[in-house]
């Protein structure tokens, strides 16, 4: 199988300057410096096929951004193999750059003082986009985002969400085969996040664009990426189906019961109470016992209302990040 993205034993190390605290340490460091080597990414293997939508998750400093920077050629690996679209990224060949795009949530490629349309024109020239393709793509993406009105507004006057939409349009004008997204929904409100998710799903299915997404918002990953890779301290901790990943950590259900005040509520065995007052209780129970526990409650107390939810996604993410076990699909 020909992989559009391939790494084997990929490693990136940084040197960090160390200094003792205090004035003495400052003076000592003036003449003698000690450095420590820190691996931002270690022995990382990855294979991605064309058209995949891959999620990359992990806590801060796990190595996600370092990986994206190596895949896009921004930084060179310390060791290991890497190939993207058949190129060695850090050679930074134009033929390679014309086939991918990268959007970094915190680094804008738009010309701040001008309109988004001006940036589009610059990119048209930079990427040698034929006028016909340029027009067609611009119309398509502006429609998908319902954002025609923003095209001619100064970028600095746009909201964060509108600006991110323009970033995405900019990066897709040249029909990239691979799109790298580093925290594209960071800081956006819920409706803007949803709109961007729908847009990306459409781009992935309609154009067959391979997308690699890093995000701290698990809603993004769960909604968009059938496959996820979890990074922890520079190493791969999981590579497999996103739903399987969540299922293996989502071990509890959250049950909320409202009952008549005189009914005594007794917490079933093996459950953990989250909130309780005279007529309401919220608790976690093991997923496989949720049915029997509900049946038991219905027998024992007079219930007014019941809701059963999945465990909070933030709790699940914390569990994934904290877990010491290696989860392999």
């Amino acid at each position: 199988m020909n992989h559009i993205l391939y790494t084997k034993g990929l490693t990136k190390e940084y040197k960090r300057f160390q200094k003792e605290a205090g004035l003495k340490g400052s003076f000592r460091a003036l003449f003698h410096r000690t450095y420590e080597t820190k691996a931002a990414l270690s022995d990382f293997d990855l294979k991605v096929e064309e058209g995949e939508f891959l999620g990359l998750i992990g806590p801060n400093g796990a190595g996600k951004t370092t990986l994206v920077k190596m895949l896009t050629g921004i930084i060179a690996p310390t060791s290991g193999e890497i190939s993207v679209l058949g190129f060695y990224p850090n050679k930074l060949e134009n033929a390679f750059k014309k086939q991918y795009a990268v959007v970094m949530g915190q680094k804008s490629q738009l010309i701040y003082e001008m309109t988004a349309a001006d940036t589009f024109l610059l990119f048209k020239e930079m990427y040698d986009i034929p006028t016909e393709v340029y027009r067609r793509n611009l119309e398509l993406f502006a429609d998908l985002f319902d954002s025609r009105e923003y095209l001619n507004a100064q970028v600095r006057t746009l909201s964060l969400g509108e600006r991110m939409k323009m970033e995405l349009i900019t990066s897709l004008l040249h029909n990239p085969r691979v799109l790298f997204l580093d925290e594209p929904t960071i800081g956006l409100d819920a409706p803007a996040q949803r709109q961007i998710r729908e847009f990306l799903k459409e781009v992935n299915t309609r154009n067959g664009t391979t997308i690699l997404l890093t995000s701290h918002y698990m809603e993004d990953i769960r909604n968009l990426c059938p496959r996820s890779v979890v990074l922890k301290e520079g190493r791969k901790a999981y590579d497999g189906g996103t739903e399987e990943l969540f299922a293996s950590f989502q071990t509890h259900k959250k049950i909320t019961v409202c009952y008549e005040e005189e009914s005594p509520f007794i917490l079933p065995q093996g459950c953990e109470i989250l909130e309780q007052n005279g007529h309401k209780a919220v608790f976690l129970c093991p997923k496989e016992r949720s049915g029997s526990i509900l049946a038991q409650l219905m027998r024992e107390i007079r219930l007014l209302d019941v809701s059963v939810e999945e465990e909070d996604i933030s709790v699940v993410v914390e569990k994934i990040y904290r877990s010491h076990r290696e989860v392999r699909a």
Partner: protein
Amino acid sequence: MKKYLEVFRWSFKMQLIWRLDVVMTLAAILGEIIAAGVLWNAAFSGRELVSGFTFHGMLSYYLTGSLLVSLDMSPRISREVSRLIREGSFSKHMVTPMNPFGFFCTKAAGQSASRLGFSFLAAAIAAGLLKINITLSWDLSRLVLGISTALLGLLFMAGYHYVIGILAFRFVEMEFFLYLQEAILSFATGALVPLSLLRGPLADFLRFLPFPHVVFTPAMLLTDQMSVAEGCLSLAVLLVWLAAILLAGQWLYHSLRTRYEGVGV
């Protein structure tokens, strides 16, 4: 007082982190003196005196002058204050129980102190390299007067740059003005050329400005090339300006800060 001491210590240490900066401090002083040495060596060719200076007297002036310039960290105050105001992060100085001028002035003092040793080292190397017979004054009254003028001059410059920085509350784009005034100040302080070389109304005008008393006056006093009487008059002029600039700094801060929009707190 303790908090200002802590700012002083912290800024002193900060300066030491960047090794290259220390090397550059040395290079700056050496460069300044070597440039003066080369230029004046050619200008003195076949002459004993130029405008009352001997060759060694002239180089002693540049040596002392560049030492004082290297200790003057005040241009960083205007740059930092105006940048903080422009970027919206000056607010942290508005909410801490510390006078902003006190903070920036102490910080600059810490930076100057950490440079002191290196500056003297560079001056000694330059004097050795160019074989300068330093015409240092051994007259106590001149020495005291010279050192006091130098210290008050540094304080004046801190006040002046604080005022310039604070003006960013009113004028957002200050960058080019900062360059403009730096160019003018390098001449007006006497760092480029001893001001006694000037004749006519420009020389008279400069005498009543505070800037010549930051470099020119102390350098001339310390190298035994200015009379005590003239030094006292210069010190009096500087004191008046110092009081004015410190008051202006406080007044401007309190009247302009109400315009602060505080973007990106």
